[in-house]
């Protein structure tokens, strides 16, 4: 293991040193120039004029080690920065380091690109020529000095990406009741629930950059009690949000180390945001950032096992599933056909109310019958597990919820996002409602009227089916939706996929991704993942906000 990655040992100075995301071109140019000059003098140790510092020691830092740490970040900038001048300059610097660096190993990026599922050639590169995307990419870069792989993949849907970046930025970097390190730590806790190494690393780094205490990164027990109190809510929301009630909220707001309502609101939204983001990240198989394990110093020849090292998971499972797939494989055409039938035959005969409810329960039960690939993966990393309590607590089908608890189906008509949750969110954490509203609307309504290679399709039925199916898995019922449509439009293996991505994102594999939605383009698959993300987030938020509402009244 050449590239062991340690969360708490990251050198934040490296990132500060490489901070080039000024919004003005001039500022960037200066920053780059400074980096180059500094590196120049360090590389030779005693250039001209001779550097007066002791051999290899700079401000008490080992200079070579510093450069070594610098290199992966430089590599990242040189490959994924959406700004031409930064990319080129970093390339130059890197070449120079390679030539002159005394024993500095220059790594190379793993080949896979931003996503392990989607070939790199299918994804718009950082220097895309599409102007819309370019703008969003640059905006996202300027925010935290990196173009995340996540954003690059989301770049398929620039409108959504824009709303997404705006929300995330508001949640993490804008005015809000929570201190900045807290926000990233909460994000990290949420991501750890789904063992999303990608997010854990990213936010561990951000946490340090915001001046967080590196000790906390050693595990939950090192974090303040206040944050640890949040664990229970985090666990419940991640897997069985319907169990959340006002007692949980009360526990947080009473006693020592309390959360104020607005702090808690922000925390809840961050938690829901990152839980669902895990679904997206795993669902799209995002590769680690280049400087966070996405590069290697080994030779090209030995890289074979390297690729699968960190995020492996491809080979082990799927045998049984493949069998299913072959049987149920369903072509795009037949899906089109069914959608057509649905739209044409709306008036055949009115199903009775009882039947409609039965249909809902049927979908609910069926969904619980769908077996998600169960693998007790041993690769749960210590890196992530230290932020997790009660790691055996996982999703449990709503239909099979403990009978004694008497948790009724959540009726969307009684507590909807538009009428109730929105106002509550906005009241406790101003403006967040509008941002989330935008996201939900874009995710729900976005369509390009295509399916695979077929043009001008009304995809709304298909999209609705996905959205409502996810809500159904979390026990949320829309009275005015005919749940039979879900069964008609979503074949079994797609349901399996959705359920896995939604509830057990850590178990998704490349085979799963490739096995479903045959004939769909990658961008459409990303679209589906995006909808899963948002629908799940809404479901979680509905439960969370309803609990807060009950607590407040």
């Amino acid at each position, binding site marked *: 293991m050449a590239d062991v990655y340690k969360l708490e040992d990251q050198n934040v100075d490296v990132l500060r040193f490489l901070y080039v995301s000024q919004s003005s071109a001039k500022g960037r140019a200066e920053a780059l120039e400074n980096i180059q000059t500094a590196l120049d003098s360090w590389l030779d140790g005693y250039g001209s004029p001779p550097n007066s510092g002791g051999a290899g020691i700079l401000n008490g830092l080992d200079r070579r080690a510093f450069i070594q740490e610098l290199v992966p970040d430089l590599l990242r900038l040189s490959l994924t920065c959406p700004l031409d001048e930064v990319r080129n300059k970093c390339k130059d610097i890197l070449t120079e380091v390679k030539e002159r660096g005394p024993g500095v190993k220059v790594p190379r990026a793993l080949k896979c690109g931003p996503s392990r599922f989607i070939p790199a050639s299918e994804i718009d590169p950082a220097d895309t020529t599409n102007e819309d995307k370019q703008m969003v990419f640059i905006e996202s870069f300027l925010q935290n000095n990196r173009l995340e792989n996540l954003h690059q993949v989301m770049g398929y849907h620039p409108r959504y990406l824009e709303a997404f970046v705006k929300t995330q930025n508001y949640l993490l970097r804008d005015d809000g009741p929570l201190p900045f390190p807290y926000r990233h730590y909460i994000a990290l806790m949420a991501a750890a629930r789904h063992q999303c190494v990608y997010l854990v690393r990213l936010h561990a780094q951000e946490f340090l950059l915001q001046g967080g205490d590196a000790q906390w990164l050693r595990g939950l027990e090192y974090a303040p009690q206040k944050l640890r109190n949040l664990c229970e809510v985090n666990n419940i929301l991640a897997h069985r949000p319907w169990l959340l009630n006002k007692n949980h909220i009360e526990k947080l707001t009473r006693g020592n180390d309390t959360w104020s309502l607005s702090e808690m609101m922000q925390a809840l939204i961050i938690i829901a945001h990152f839980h669902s983001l895990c679904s997206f990240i795993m669902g799209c198989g995002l590769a680690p950032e280049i400087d966070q394990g996405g590069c290697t110093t080994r030779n090209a020849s030995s890289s074979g096992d390297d690729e699968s090292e960190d995020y492996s998971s491809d080979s082990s499972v799927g045998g049984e599933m493949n069998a299913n797939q072959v049987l149920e494989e369903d072509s795009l055409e037949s899906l089109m056909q069914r959608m057509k039938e649905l739209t044409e035959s709306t008036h055949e005969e*009115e199903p*009775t*109310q*009882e039947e*409609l*409810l039965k249909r809902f329960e049927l979908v609910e039960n069926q969904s619980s019958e769908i077996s998600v690939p169960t693998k007790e993966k041993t690769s749960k990393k210590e890196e992530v597990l230290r932020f997790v309590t009660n790691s055996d607590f996982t999703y449990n089908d709503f239909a099979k919820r403990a009978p004694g608890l008497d948790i009724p189906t959540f*009726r969307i*008509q*009684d507590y909807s996002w*538009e*009428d*109730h949750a*929105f*106002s*509550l969110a906005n*009241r406790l954490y101003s403006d967040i409602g509008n941002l989330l509203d935008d996201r939900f609307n874009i995710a729900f309504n976005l369509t390009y009227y295509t399916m695979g290679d077929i043009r001008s399709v009304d995809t709304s039925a298909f999209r609705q089916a996905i959205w409502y199916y996810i809500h159904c898995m979390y026990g949320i019922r829309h*009275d*005015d939706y005919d749940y039979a449509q879900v069964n008609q439009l979503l074949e079994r293996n797609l349901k399996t996929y959705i359920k896995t991505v939604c509830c057990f994102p850590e178990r998704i594999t490349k085979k799963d991704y490739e096995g479903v939605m045959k004939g769909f383009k990658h961008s459409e698959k990303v679209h589906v993942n995006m909808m899963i993300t948002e629908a799940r987030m809404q479901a979680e938020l509905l439960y969370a906000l309803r609990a807060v*509402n009950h607590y*407040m*009244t």
Partner: protein
Amino acid sequence: MQAAMHNMTKVVQDKVSPTHNLPMSINCDGPVNAMDMNKDMSKVVVAGRQVFKIIEVEDDMFVETSNLRVGKPKNINLNYSAADVAWNHNDENMLASAATNGAVVIWNLSKQVKSKQEFVFMEHKRSVNRVVFHNSEAYQLLSGSQDGTMKLHDLRRKQVTLTFMGRSSESVRDIQFCPANLGYFSFAAAYENGIVQIWDMRRPDRCEKHFTAHNEPVFALDWHPEDKHWLATAGRDKMIKVWDINKQPAQLLYVVQTIASVGRIKWRPQRRYHIANCSLLLDHNVNVWDVRRPYIPFACFEQHKDVATCVLWKDPHILLSTGKDYMLHQHIFQSAKRPGDFVIPSGVDISIHGDVCLAYKERTAAVKGKEAGKISMFGRKTSQSRSELFFTQANSSLAVFQQIAEPNTEDEFAAQQMSPTQLASEDVSMTSFLELAKKYRLKGLTTEELCRHNSAAAAAVDKYQVAQTWQIMGNIFCTKTSSTKSTSLQVPRINVTPNAPMDRQDVEKGKAVSSPDNEVEVVRSDNDKEKNGEISTGTDSDSDGESSEFEKNQLADIASGLGHNGDFFFGDGDNETLSYPLGITVQGGEDWTQLPSEAFQPRHEITGPAAPPDRLDHDSLMVAAVESDAVAVMTPIEESEPSEQYLNLNIDCSAFHAGTVLDYTSTAVDIICCFAEQGDIQSAVSMLIVLGDHVRSHIDGESQENWFMSYIDLLSRFRLWTIASEVIALSHLPQVMQLNQSSTSIHTACPHCMRTMERSGWLCDRCKSVVNMCSICHCPVKGLAVWCQGCCHGGHIQHIQDWLVGNILCPEGCGHMCEYT
């Protein structure tokens, strides 16, 4: 009808309520979403997810008469769970309910069987949000749904006759028919995107009116029962808006700000301005608002334990409401809580003349102090509206405090000074500002001369403090070049009205309002704070050699831990002298000229800037001196001793080393900043300009720019354009200098088409012709042009000059005797 008659008698005196109506309630065994009444208001239907009941309203209690929800208690049929319910206005036995699954269900109470369900329309694809019967057409039912359509159902034919659909497919949240007597065919619809539309039933293809009422979803709307042009809307943005829809575009008449998103609204019958609302979440009260008083509910009912979902007026004095807490309540208006009673109305403001105005309720303590006028009645405008409104009679007083001369002020003081009143008003009315703006010289002389000139100018308008500062500035910055000579500086006797008139005012205010009112307390403590702040910042100006005993007193006061007491300054029997001329005699020392500021260096110590270490001894000495001064000053006051006291500070400065050049730039910078902080932007900017390079680099550019901008703004407001532009030119700040370089060109207009000629002064872009040709050579004038304002002819300046040598008439031949000046 009986009820209506009954109401007629009640209009006369609202507070007398009918005796036989009592507040009452009933538990409906489930959250209620909606309710409606039959036409004679004897029965109520309540509907919710698990509730569908008819309840009889009797005089003293509710009685449940029938339950329409038949079958198993856990009936899963969604037709029984309604989001809205409506009772036919004409047919006593007909009900309609809207189900969340998109069904519209018709109920017939006259059916003999157990299930009263008559017919189900399954026309809507999504949830139905509202059903309403037409007011007079018994068989017309309108429904509005989440799927963006409104459908008109004909109950006789049992089918949908018309479908109304807006351009967008936004969800319909509420629909209401216009009251029958006002518009037979009209109805209004509220959409989720904030749009409200007025439709005519006869024209299903498009709406009559369309306007954006809210930025967020509209949840409710209600027609005014009497005024057909008034429509109230309410939504998630926590606002109730009243619109005049007759205007084009619809005019917003009133806005009421509530504390939570509004679920339902209902106008109060017979009260033009009253509207009841209930909230969608968090706020459990049913509030009744007077739309003219939008910040506090006129009345509120607090019975509900969970959010109220629906309100209905039985008559103007009886209100029914249902809630998610299973309850149906009947509220009697008389027993409502009036939040207006519990607030203490008070307000404070200051006029441009420095008068402080305080409005407060009379039950607070009587006002002592100097009240110039007492105006009672606050909050009521005409007696006519008084009878109409039922706000608590707010007896309040309005006191206006004015600056009044102290009767017992020292003679000398009175003789020398204008009364504080005059001073105050003058200070605020800015005459001295204008005077100074015109008189100040900012360039053309040496720094020293400029300072001297400006000092004289300031002295001329009685701004002694400023004048003194100018003088010191001059001294500081000229001595650097002048040779050392030995002179004696006699700081002129100055009578200072200490610490600006504002301070007096504050004290007065604090003193006069001794009521226990909270707000006033706040104001008062603010005053104290402000005063302290002024003292600490004011020390800079003190150090200019200008001494104010008054402030010293304050300082001493603070130092000795005594609280501030207005009477200390303005007490009646107090023979206090407000001015102590201070003479400073300075002996010897080569750096004598720097002494005026040196003498008060200790005060700088207080505010911060560090003094060079070699003066430390002196500093401590001076602190002692100042303290003893204060004590010395205190004593005579107590003993009522003669009013004049000279303070002679004899300072031996021989200790200074010859040739030590002390840098006073930081002092000057402090002074300038201090002026700016006090709001005297004029002095700050003028000094900044005059001292120029000496201080500019020590003040950060941003505040400099701010000062300049505000000064220029002030000057322009007083139309002192030339001075403003001079200031701009002298500013040295590129951002400010730019002001003079923008919009400097004035385009002439083409004489034919009046279009401004932007490209060049002699070719019109529209007429495509050359205009304003020279009268002599008939060529276009491309350089300097001159023309007669009488006949508008002219041309090249040289040609006209030549012409006029020998002629007096216009060269064009128009016969005008041209005059060129």
